[in-house]
């Protein structure tokens, strides 16, 4: 099988020097995607992709095509796509075909990117292993008995296995960065409010954010430039912040930068020694490159998980109330309305989704609301304030992305708390609305480890600058799993 170029930048150069065409690139990507043995895809739309590729080729011939023209990409199946089924990994949306596309999809369409299809995920993005998909688990291409992480497992794998040049995922508590770490690719969550949520199936509205999976930091910046920016359909977006050139600082290096190392991120019980070793080695690299490392304290880190598991299920319980079998998706008819609701939702939702809706409903109930939801919001404010204080002293934070490498499929399915702990380093970033990126930083037991770089709100450029400097200094991002053909 033909291999895809290593990066968007590489492919864009080939397209412009006529050494390949968008159609050839798309055919190769489709061939590899059809041969995928990791259950990464839920839907491939070959003909649409070929049509987009032909249009892209015509545009490339005219010159002046944007960087993403002709680049094949993978879309997490929680991002709505017009006329293409969108399942959110759930049976409840069986048969639902959106009449409109998410803004992020429209923006990529406009730039001539070629969407190959929709990728597998944990149902409604609820999970850290992709085992909660109604359409079966996704396998990690580095070791197929391991999970790829979640919830955007399919998107991470599509990039890691060389099936697409980039993918979009959504990150509510780590759903881009954690699978990126576990699959050895770059995964990035933007500042809350920089990417439109219009058309993205809502999980937890105040935390959800779309972001890219890529092979390189530069590619992540390229995709972010395409999807960032105000959308009048999403009024929670920031209006004052100007769109900036995210690639400007990529080459600047970290010399003289102050990087914070939060001690709480290294003292967690359950952190694998191999992960810690790899991350500490990465810190050394950054120091060698001229950064000043500084130990900082984020004392509320422990409370992040509790806050997250109140706010996130509370919002989810409300967001998922619309799936009632009346207008679209699955309907299991009962003798009366209540029974139709019960049967439809009973059959349509998986156990993890039900668990979270019950948690969220409880947290919002009369008599509990103040003790749970209101208190969680107050602690959320405190957590955010703690980050604000730290960012007065440092330019960015460097931490592990996940406390473990990819674990065995089935290992944690009966232990939700152990599963939730996987996101302990990523979810405070969502709670605080900050941008974060995971870049490959080596291996433990032959499985990839991710380094997380967190910047202050809207400081994506700073975040990319640190990530790119690290990437240049190490070969880890070049490592690829050996993918066996079907």
């Amino acid at each position: 099988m033909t291999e895809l170029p290593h990066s968007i930048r590489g492919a864009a150069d080939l397209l412009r020097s006529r050494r390949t065409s968008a159609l050839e690139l798309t055919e190769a990507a489709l061939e590899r995607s059809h041969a995928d043995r990791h259950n990464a895809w839920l839907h491939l739309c070959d003909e649409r992709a070929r049509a987009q590729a032909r249009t892209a080729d015509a545009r490339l011939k005219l010159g002046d095509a944007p960087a993403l023209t002709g680049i094949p990409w993978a879309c997490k199946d929680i991002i709505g796509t017009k006329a293409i089924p969108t399942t959110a990994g759930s049976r409840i949306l069986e048969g639902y075909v959106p009449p409109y596309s998410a803004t992020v999809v429209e923006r990529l369409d406009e730039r001539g990117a070629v969407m190959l299809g929709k990728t597998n995920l944990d149902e409604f993005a609820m999970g850290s292993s992709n085992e909660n998909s109604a359409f079966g688990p996704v396998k990690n291409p580095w070791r197929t008995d391991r999970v790829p992480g979640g919830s955007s497992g399919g998107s991470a794998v599509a990039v890691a296995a060389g099936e697409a040049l980039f993918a979009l995922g959504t990150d509510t508590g780590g759903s881009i960065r954690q699978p990126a770490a576990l699959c050895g690719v770059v995964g990035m969550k933007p500042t809350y409010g920089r990417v439109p949520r219009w058309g993205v199936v809502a999980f937890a509205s105040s935390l959800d954010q779309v972001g890219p999976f890529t092979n390189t930091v530069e590619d992540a910046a390229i995709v972010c430039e395409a999807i960032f920016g105000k959308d009048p359909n999403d009024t929670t977006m920031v209006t004052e912040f100007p769109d900036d050139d995210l690639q400007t600082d990529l080459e600047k290096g970290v010399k003289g930068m102050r990087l914070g190392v939060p001690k709480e991120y290294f003292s967690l019980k359950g952190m694998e020694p191999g992960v810690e070793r790899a991350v500490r080695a990465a810190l050394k690299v950054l120091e060698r490159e001229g950064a000043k490392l500084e130990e900082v304290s984020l004392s509320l880190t422990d409370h992040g998980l509790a806050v997250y598991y109140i706010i996130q299920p509370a919002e989810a319980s409300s967001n998922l109330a619309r799936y009632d079998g009346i207008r679209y998706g699955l309907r299991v008819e009962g003798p009366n309305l209540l029974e139709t609701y019960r049967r439809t939702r009973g059959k349509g939702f998986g156990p993890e989704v039900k668990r979270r809706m019950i948690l969220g409903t409880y947290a919002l109930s009369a008599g509990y609301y103040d003790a749970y939801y209101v208190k969680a919001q107050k602690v959320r404010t405190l957590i955010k304030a703690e980050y604000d204080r730290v960012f007065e002293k440092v330019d960015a934070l460097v931490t592990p992305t996940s406390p473990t490498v990819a674990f065995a499929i089935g290992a944690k399915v009966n232990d939700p708390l152990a599963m939730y702990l996987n996101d302990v380093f990523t979810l405070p970033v969502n709670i605080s609305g900050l941008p974060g990126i995971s870049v490959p930083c080596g291996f433990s037991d032959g499985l990839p480890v991710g380094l997380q770089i967190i910047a202050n709100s809207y400081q994506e450029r700073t975040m990319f600058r640190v990530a790119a400097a690290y990437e240049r200094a190490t070969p880890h991002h070049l490592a690829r799993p050996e993918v066996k053909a079907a």
Partner: protein
Amino acid sequence: MTVSAPPYELVIGIETHVELNTESKMFCGCRARWFGAPPNTLVCPVCLGLPGALPVPNRRAIELAITAGLALHCQTPDHTKFDRKNYMYPDLPKGYQISQYDLPLTVNGWLKLEGGKRVGIRRAHLEEDTGTLKHGEGAGQRYTLVDFNRSGVPLLEIVSDPDMSSAGEAERYVRTLRDILVYSGVSEMRLEQGAGRFDVNVSIRFEEGGKTIWPPQSEIKNLNSYEALRGAVAYESDRLWREWQSGGEIRTRTGKVTVGWSPERGRTYMQRSKEEVEDYRYFPEPDLVALRPKATRVAELRAALPEMPTERRARFVEKLGLSEKDARNLVADRQLADYFEAAVGVEPTSAKAVANWVIGELTAALKRDGGDAKGARVAPEQLGVLVRLIAAGRVSPTAAKQVFGEMWKRGGDPEAIVNTLGLAQTSDEDAIAAAVDEVLKANPSALADYRKGKERALDGLIGPVMSRMKGRADGAVIRRIILERVG
């Protein structure tokens, strides 16, 4: 027969839901004027609750809500937000309604009923309307259809204090409220099109064995006319009293009950009791940011408020010399009152006559041909000129009706029409005298009656003379000439 006062005191509070006068819905661009549109034609991902859709608040709806508050003497807090009210029903596409819970747009006001009583306005908040359900039966099966045209239409819920103490007062409150909302442009409140609905809290209070008894209240849901409001309040208060008297469960119940009103059967029916009370799990709507109405904008909205109906009525009576009744008739319809004032502007010394024309000829013509006073086929300025012609004796009131009819039909300047149709009042007394003679000859009995002392017997002759004169004579001149002839 004497109507005896009920043996209890009534305490009534009303939640009024009104559709706001906006072109588009509360959170999307779909048309808000849903009444009469084919089912599910005014819908989009937002008001259908499709996955991934997000609300965008309607600025005009927010400003109208603030305006309503200002017209009701409310305060506009500088911080307000939207919340989600969670419950599932097929007409509610998202499984929650976007509403306002603890920080409404406007709070703590009042309105004054005719006669001077004040009713407190506790709060008014914005929310989105639901779809509508249609139940039917076909092929032996009962079914329900959902129409989402109304889904997302902006609603203002205005909550009164429990300040009303009779069904009549409750009705006066909602009529006064309606006048204010229509006047301030907030809502057209066409009840017949479902654009206003009332939830009424009714409780009774009385003395028994030296103690004040205040049994749990009833909430009557979804009343949509003044008749329903009157009937339901009277029925339900009496029912509470009878239930108490017969030792019903009201004596042990602790919470309120929710009832519906059946206009066909003229009675209320139980919907749910406190034990089944729903927990709406309100929480701040995470898809919308909090609102901070700017004080400068609120001041602008306040400055743009028109004169309110009560004040306008008083001015019409005191300054323009209208009767209470005429003032009420005009002010009940803002467009009619505006029309009246525009016409009076042309003929300021004949306000009373202008009022008669507006309430009489104009209203009849509008009723006959449809349409509103604004944009009527006879402009207020034209009517003003016509009334001036009458006052100056240039045209008789009878002929003026013909002129009005002509303007209504074909348009044109009143003076020109008077000339074209030859309706100018004649001062040719010979012609009038000739007509009088003819009429007297044809009505010998009237003359005989007059001579027997019935002074009014000749009054009936003025009309026939006028019609022989084709309306062009002055009634007073006819009268004088008749008296001259018989005297």
